[in-house]
């Protein structure tokens, strides 16, 4: 502080900070309350779940409701489906997007501008309406009720390609030239120079794709009709449909559905908060 404040000014400043925090706490409660309440319901065993004021710290916490989820639905199967779908989606997204990004970033070839504009256009197409034709396509390919059918349409995305492209553009040209002089093929340059140097951006892409794929709801719900193939985000609705009144059990299932994504998010938040810097400029 360059100059001394009079005590009235200091008090005014304190009040401002206090109001600031009050607003932050109020909004944080507004945003996170449904999750906190669901968690409290899931670990609670007694009393009216909808009582007001809500009990956020249950009197007799227990994991009984979670055990009950395992008894009433095949949540293990749903978990496995989610892990399986997410794993392959992430792997293929990284492979396909970085393969496509390499020539766009570092090779001079005929049609580069054209390809780049074509990929750019996909950002502007109203692609949310594509699920209808994609469903017909999947029917014709015989991929309805397969995990491949869930994964295929999601792996090539303009965002992923642009992300990897800007990562590859930062790699010094000298490194690439040296490798080429030594007789390395383009595939080798890509594999042994580009990918290792782009690891931070690959990590960002992996984290984003993991959370998106884990939470994906509409498309898996369209392609998969057999309950034993469904990922958690879709399968959880079976629980609320069949056991609509067993609030505590459904709450336990809900906690189990969102926990993995929330844990990934909390440990990697800076990627979520910073990942957009490029998008804005």
């Amino acid at each position: 502080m360059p100059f001394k404040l009079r005590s009235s000014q200091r008090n005014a400043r304190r009040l401002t900070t206090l109001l600031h925090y009050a607003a932050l706490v109020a909004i944080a409660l507004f945003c996170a309350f449904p999750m906190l309440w669901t968690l409290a319901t899931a670990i609670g065993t007694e009393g009216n779940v909808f009582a007001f004021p809500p009990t956020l710290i249950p009197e007799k916490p227990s994991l009984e409701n979670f055990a009950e989820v395992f008894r009433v639905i095949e949540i293990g199967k749903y978990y496995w489906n989610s892990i399986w779908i997410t794993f392959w989606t992430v792997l293929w997204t990284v492979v396909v997007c970085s393969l496509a990004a390499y020539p766009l970033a570092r090779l001079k070839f005929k049609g580069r501008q054209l390809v780049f504009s074509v990929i750019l256009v996909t950002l502007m197409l109203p692609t949310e309406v594509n699920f209808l034709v994609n469903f017909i396509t999947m029917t014709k390919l015989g991929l309805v009720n397969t995990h491949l059918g869930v994964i295929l349409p999601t792996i090539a995305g303009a965002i992923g390609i642009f992300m990897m492209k800007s990562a590859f553009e930062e790699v010094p040209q000298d490194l690439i030239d040296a490798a080429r002089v030594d007789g390395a093929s383009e595939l080798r340059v890509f594999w042994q120079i580009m990918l290792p140097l782009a690891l931070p951006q690959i990590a960002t892409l992996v984290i984003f794709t993991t959370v998106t794929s884990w939470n994906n709801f509409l498309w898996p719900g369209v392609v998969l009709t057999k309950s034993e193939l469904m990922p958690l985000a879709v399968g959880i609705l079976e629980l609320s449909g069949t056991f609509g009144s067993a609030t505590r059990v459904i709450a336990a299932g809900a906690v189990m559905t969102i926990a993995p994504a929330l844990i990934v998010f909390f440990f990697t938040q800076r990627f979520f908060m910073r990942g957009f810097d490029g998008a804005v400029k």
Partner: protein
Amino acid sequence: MDTTADPLHPPAVNKHRRRATRAPLTTTAQAWLFLAPALLLLLGFTFWPVLWGSYLAFTEYKVITPPEWVGLKNFEELFEDEVFITSLKNSLLYLLIVPFIQLGALLLAVLVNNSLPGIKFFRAAFYVPVVTSVSVVGIMWGWMYNEQGLINAALQWLRVINEPIGWLTDDRIALFAVMFVTMWRGLGWYMVLYLAGLQAIPKDIEEAAVLDGANRWQRFWRITVPMLAPTILLCSVLSTLAAMKVLEEVLILTRGGPMSSTFTGLYYAYDMGIRSFNFPRALAASLVVSVFCIFVAWLNFKFIQPRHR
């Protein structure tokens, strides 16, 4: 066998031949090989659906037989369907709430754009709804809105209301209840976009304005808002498009009900296509939604960009 001693097949020639058959591909060919997987997938699942779907909207198509051109018949039926008219009205109402999300997200971003202790925790808390699966969001808000749910309990406890309100079962209220969930889900996501924009504003401009005696309000309108123009445009385009394409919240909270009071344009397409297997009409509906989306995006560019240039 010692091939080097064979006078008819000197190894040098051999080596040369092998090289020749494995001649390195031209850069262009290699580039296309690298691009092939992504391009094939984009063509198959992004461009093809847009083109083929737009064509099918003008046909009679039952998937098992080839499509038959019927001109505007599907669109005529579409606009005679009262449910679709309701859907369009609801989608347009959705567009009206967008400015409120924008304002809320911007104010929130200003609120968290500082270095108070613990600010990172608050930013994370605001982002939690964004990384929560929409199916769980639906379950949780289903409870919040329940007749015996927490919102009614709270309002009765506060003596604001005597009878519980059917947030999702009253056809005059349900759409607004669903909209509220959309806003709740979107707030943190636009906040992060605005935050990134705010942090890109150079600090010295703000400091210079402070020295010139500009108050907080003047600094916000004269510096922050104009400097944020690209972010405002981006968020505005994204959020208006998102408003036109609302589907998931409706699907899990109300399935379009009660009656058809919460149908949106895209939910109508989902309902027609995936549940009733009437693909041509579903595609006609989604084409109408797409045209609206393009129009709305164009409006954004036209009205927001030049003003702050």
